[in-house]
């Protein structure tokens, strides 16, 4: 049995297949202070998978325009040019890492929870006046460190999983007890290496300890979205647990419980979108 450290896992990130040149170029372009809609649309169109994903997001029931958004340029108008950078990051990274098939690991459950958290985050964001698109992307990628661990260090991951099953504890506790580090640190390292927008990186890093972030951070919203997704059975399964909800994050978000129940219903009504997020 070989021990691994956070340094081992982080050093290994360089061996992951890189994002495509088209996506890299697009993300670089979107970082410029002035961007041209036509240029962005043209760059997106060079990657048909990415283009299809963005159109799917723009046509989701959330925006109330199902089936009406036919072109990339229209999608950019619906989604807003400023949010495109985060959406491209999410769509590109998700489709890129979906190819990391892992023997003995339930990738479907992982992505079901990721998509569910993205839907919850988007719904919460609209309620509290945050950017729905940033929230959606952060939700989609919040647990990405766990996928990296399972894909690249399957033996270590199996030990974590066995520990979790034996103690019936939270996956986060099992990671810390077995490895001495957890998926948020791996995710944050990947986000930094692949130059995710800073807000997304912080949300990945702090979604289990949102009280350590300033009031109004995306981390507190993703923390609540994560809890909400588990409560709605994303991914479901006999062993699933609703994570400990931080009272600090909850109070900062400023929602009431009656409101929260209504939002559970809103996400439930979008369940069909969860499958489309990732197909």
């Amino acid at each position, binding site marked *: 049995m070989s021990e691994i450290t956070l340094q081992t896992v982080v050093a290994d990130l360089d061996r992951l297949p890189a994002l495509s040149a088209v996506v890299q170029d697009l993300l670089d372009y979107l970082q410029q202070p002035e961007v041209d809609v036509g240029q962005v649309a043209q760059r997106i169109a060079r990657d048909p998978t990415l283009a299809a994903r963005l159109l799917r997001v723009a046509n989701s029931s959330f925006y109330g325009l199902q089936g009406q958004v036919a072109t990339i340029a229209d999608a950019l108008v619906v989604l807003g040019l400023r949010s495109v950078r985060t959406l491209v990051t999410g769509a590109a990274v998700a489709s890129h890492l979906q190819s990391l098939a892992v023997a003995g690991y339930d990738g479907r459950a992982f992505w079901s929870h990721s998509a569910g958290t993205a839907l919850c985050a988007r719904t919460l964001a609209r309620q509290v006046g945050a950017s729905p698109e940033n929230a959606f992307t952060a939700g989609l990628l919040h647990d990405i460190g766990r996928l990296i661990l399972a894909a690249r260090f399957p033996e270590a991951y199996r030990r974590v999983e066995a520990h979790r099953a034996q103690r019936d504890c939270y996956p986060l506790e099992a990671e810390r007890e077995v490895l001495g580090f957890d998926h948020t640190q791996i995710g944050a390292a990947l986000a930094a290496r692949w130059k995710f927008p800073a807000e997304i990186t912080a949300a990945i890093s702090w979604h289990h300890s949102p009280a350590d972030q300033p009031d109004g951070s995306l981390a507190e919203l993703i923390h609540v979205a994560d809890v909400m997704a588990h409560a709605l059975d994303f991914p479901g399964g006999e062993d699933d647990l*609703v994570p*400990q909800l931080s009272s600090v994050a909850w109070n900062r978000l400023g929602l009431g419980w009656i409101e929260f129940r209504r939002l559970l219903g809103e996400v439930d009504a979008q369940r069909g979108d969860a499958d489309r997020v990732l197909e």
Partner: protein
Amino acid sequence: MSTPIRRFPLDQAQPGMVLAADVMSGGNVLLPLGTVLSAAQLAGLAKREVGEIVVLAPVERSAAEIEALRVAQERRVQRLFRRAGSDATMQALLRAVQAYRLEGIE
């Protein structure tokens, strides 16, 4: 359990009803059996002067069925919250999730 089938005049049909037979027009299938009707589709059928459609009747649950669903939902929520402990925020969350799931049954 077989689900009852009912004929519905189109103007009384509601979005969300499920077609129990193809909707035909002059030998063409306008909408296939199993379609969950949307408001737009109902409007489309009205435009094509479809008079009535055959849908699955809404399921009416017996008291015993409702009770069984209620127990199943409560068990599921307890299972998901089995590590919640006595923390006040977690208990409030549990009650909200429980209430949400139960309101969907009746």
